[in-house]
Structure formats: structure tokens, C-alpha cells
């Protein structure tokens, strides 16, 4: 009974994090982007520096009519936002926040679980792209599928390097084996993982599948109201998941001064620092073309990931 109640509470906590943290990241993006571009960003909603802007946006989305185009494949069209969003909720359960079981659910093959379930999210944009019966949406869908070929392999290789270093594929196990010198040791893998993750989330500079100025938001062109909001939420939830994962795998998660008491704070700090970098990249870099991403992935990311894997192996053999 107690364990059931505890499991329920943990799931509830994960749900609350899932519903609030992406909004915090979204609001940060509004403000950070604005200030980097010499603007102020939202200033009125909620009074203090427009803190309630995204709440207002949510209300706006909820009021809008939910339109399904006449030519669309109704059921697939309506199901797509859920398929895009739910994987990130599931992934959040497995990410350790602090020492001593401060995690939704510790999994034996946590790293595999996280990468596998995150990959399912792509199906959502593919379904949306095809079911909208819209040329631009289809182009977006094709681009997201093509993009997958570029980022999947380097991302897995970089994650495998950490698993090799720790001798474990459990996220808590990896954190348990962490030492500070892992950060310089795995830094190349971290770069590859983070970059490939950006491509998976379709964030700038890898936002070719949504590219609002070319193919009008790609797979999401036909979506309105709440379903569109769900796609947006999945993007920001994805940023949260990617940053938390990078922090856990490559930056030591809850490790830091006073980690016994303030471990969760370290995880949060690292996660949000990375989220800031994600926003920063959006403001800084122009959008790549799909073939440039392919080229970048096969000529830069995969060789780097393989080199990291070799380095990890050598160091591992030397120190053991």
C-alpha cells in the first residue's frame, strides 16, 4: 500500500515537473531572446516582466477552434500530438534528480529506455506531416525522417561512451560511478550528444523540419488550438529532457559541492544552464540545410563520437 502510494506520488511529481518546467524554459526563451536582440519581450501579462505570458498563451490556445482539415486523415491527425508529447513525459520518469533514490523510477537499462522512448517522439511529427494532407506538412515530415538518419547514430555512440566509462547503462549507476575528471574525459562525447539532441528536437540551427520561413512550420502547419500547443509543449519538454540528460550523462548530474543535501539543485542548475545554451544557439546561428546537417553528422559528429568511444576504451583499459 505504501509503495503504491509512493509510486503514485512520484508519478504526480514527475507530471507537475513536466507541466511547469517547459513553461519556465519557454518564458526564459522569450526573455533571453528578446534581450539578446535588444528588445524587452513580454512585459504586460501578469504584471511583473510579463511572467504570465505563457499562461495567457495557453488560455488563448485552449479557446481556439480545433480544426481538422477536410482532406486529412482524421484519427492519425488527432493522435499525432499525443504521440509527440507522451514520450518526453515517460522519459522524465527515469531521470535521476538527486542522490539516494531521488528519481521517478530507477530503471536497470535506464539509458536505453531514455534513448528508445525519446526516439518514438519523432513518429508524432511524421504522423502529423503525413496526415495533414498538406504539401508543406509532408515536406516537414520527410525532413524530420531524413534528419533522424543524421542524429540517431552519433547520439547513441556518444551515450554508449558514457555507459562504457561507467560500466553501467542505468542512469543512477552512471551517476554513482561519476568522478569529476569524467567531464574533460567525455567532453567530446557530450558535445556530440548535445548537438545530436538539438537535431532530434528540431531546434535551431537544425530546425529544417519546422522552418517557419520556408515550409511554414512543416508538420504543424495545419494544427490549431490545443493540439498545436501540445506540439509546442513537446518541443520545450524535449529541451528539458535533453538538457537534463546531458547534465546527468556528461556533467555529473547531482555531483557538486554539498551534493548530499543540495544534489537536486545542482541537477537543476546544470539543466537550466544547458537550456540557456539551447536558447542562445537559436538566437545566434542561422538554419542549416538538410544536406549540410547530413554532411556535418557524417563528417564531424560520427568520427568524433567514434574517437570518443576509442578514447573511453583506452582510458578504461589503462586505469582498470
Amino acid at each position, binding site marked *: 500500500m505504501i509503495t503504491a502510494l509512493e509510486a503514485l506520488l512520484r508519478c504526480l511529481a514527475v507530471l507537475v515537473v513536466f507541466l511547469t518546467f517547459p513553461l519556465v524554459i519557454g518564458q526564459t526563451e522569450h526573455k533571453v531572446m528578446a534581450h539578446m536582440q535588444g528588445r524587452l519581450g513580454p512585459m504586460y501579462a501578469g504584471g511583473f516582466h510579463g511572467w504570465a505570458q505563457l499562461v495567457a498563451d495557453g488560455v488563448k490556445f485552449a479557446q481556439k477552434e480545433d480544426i481538422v482539415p477536410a482532406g486529412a*486523415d482524421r484519427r492519425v491527425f488527432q493522435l499525432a500530438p499525443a504521440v509527440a508529447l507522451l514520450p518526453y513525459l515517460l522519459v522524465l520518469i527515469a531521470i535521476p534528480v538527486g542522490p539516494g533514490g531521488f528519481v521517478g523510477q530507477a530503471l536497470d537499462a535506464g539509458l536505453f529506455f531514455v534513448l528508445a522512448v525519446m*526516439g*518514438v517522439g*519523432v*513518429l508524432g511529427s511524421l504522423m502529423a506531416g*503525413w496526415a495533414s494532407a498538406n504539401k508543406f506538412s509532408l515536406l516537414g515530415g520527410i525532413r524530420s*525522417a531524413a534528419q533522424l538518419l543524421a542524429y540517431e547514430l552519433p547520439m547513441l555512440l556518444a551515450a554508449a561512451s558514457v555507459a562504457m566509462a561507467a560500466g553501467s547503462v542505468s542512469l543512477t549507476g552512471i551517476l554513482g560511478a561519476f568522478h569529476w575528471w569524467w567531464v574533460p574525459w567525455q567532453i567530446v562525447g557530450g558535445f556530440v550528444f548535445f548537438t545530436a539532441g538539438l537535431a532530434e528536437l528540431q531546434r535551431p540551427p537544425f530546425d529544417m523540419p519546422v522552418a517557419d520561413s520556408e515550409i511554414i512550420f512543416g508538420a504543424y502547419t495545419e494544427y490549431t488550438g490545443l493540439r498545436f500547443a501540445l506540439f509546442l509543449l513537446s518541443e520545450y519538454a524535449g529541451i528539458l529532457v535533453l538538457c537534463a540528460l546531458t547534465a546527468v550523462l556528461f556533467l555529473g548530474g547531482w555531483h557538486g559541492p554539498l551534493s548530499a543535501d543540495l544534489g537536486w539543485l545542482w541537477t537543476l542548475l546544470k539543466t537550466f544552464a544547458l537550456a540557456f545554451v539551447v536558447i542562445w544557439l537559436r538566437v545566434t546561428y542561422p538554419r542549416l540545410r538538410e544536406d549540410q546537417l547530413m554532411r556535418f553528422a557524417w563528417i564531424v559528429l560520427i568520427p568524433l563520437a567514434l574517437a570518443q568511444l576509442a578514447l573511453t576504451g583506452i582510458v578504461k583499459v589503462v586505469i582498470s
Partner: protein
Amino acid sequence: MTAVLAASLSSQGHSFLTPTGVEIVFVLVGLAVLGAAVLTVTTSQLVHAALWLVVALGGLAIEYLLLTAEFIAWVQVLIYLGSVVVLVLFGLMLTKAPIGRSPDADSGNRWVALGVAVVAAATLVTLVVDAFRSTWMDLSSGGGSTGANGEVLFRYWVLPFEALSVLLLAALVGAIVLSRRHREEG
């Protein structure tokens, strides 16, 4: 389907009248997988077929989980749902897969295909049932964990594992060679 039959048969040997909750769920998920698989090959909407394949493969991952093979389950999701189905969908999008029915999606070979499928299923079911009979496997947790899998794979099955990796490498090199030749012609 094979797995479902095997499971229900082996549970008969142990306690037929009192199946555990996990066994009931296993059979139910198995039926859902079977249904999704049948829909995959019978639906005349191409993309729906690929999406039903997602359901079938995802259901299989749940079956692995119920058998405590956690590692295999996540690999199933990673490889089949995350990559293979995405490739199938990518391929479908490059063709002119229409919304709604494709009238030419029906194959003239459907009865032959059904025959082959039934024969293959019958062979597999006979094989599995005959191999295990009423063996009762204790599904203690940790039996299918990553550690256990790794130990078995790299202690007893190293040679097949390495042979497979050479095969995959050959396929990879072959793909690169093919694509290079194609580029010179075009």
C-alpha cells in the same frame, strides 16, 4: 502468436486454473499484438499499415517487459519503433501514399501469402511447443537484465556476435560502394 501459445501452454503445466495477473496481461497483450499484426497486412491504407506495425512492435516490447527481459524490450523500441518504422514511413512519404484507400494495395498473391504465413506460424508453434513442452520457467527479476544479457552474450555467444558484426560491416561497406557508383553515373 507463438509466444502467446507457448506461454498459455506452459502455464497450463504449472497451474491452469489460477493464472497470475502477469500471465493474463501477457495473453491479452499478445492478442492485441496479433490483431495489430493482422491489421498491418490487411488494411488498404498504406501509412495505416505502418502505424499498425508500430502498435504490433510496441506490443511485443511490452511482452518482453512482462517476461522481465527489460534490456531486449528497450532495444526493441529503439531499433524497431525508433528507426525501422521511421524508415518505412520515410519511404512511404517519398512514394505517393494517398490519404485514404490505395486501390492497388491489394496483392494478387494474398492467398499464397496467407498460406505461407499459416505454414510458417504452424512450424514455429510446433517447434516452440515441442521444444519446451511443459517446462516451467521461473521469471525471477533480473534474469533478463542488461548485466545478465551481457554476460551470456560475451561469454557463450561471442563467435556468433562477432560473425554478425562482420556481416553488418559488410552490408555497410556494400551500401557505401553502391551509393558511390550511383553518384558517378548521375
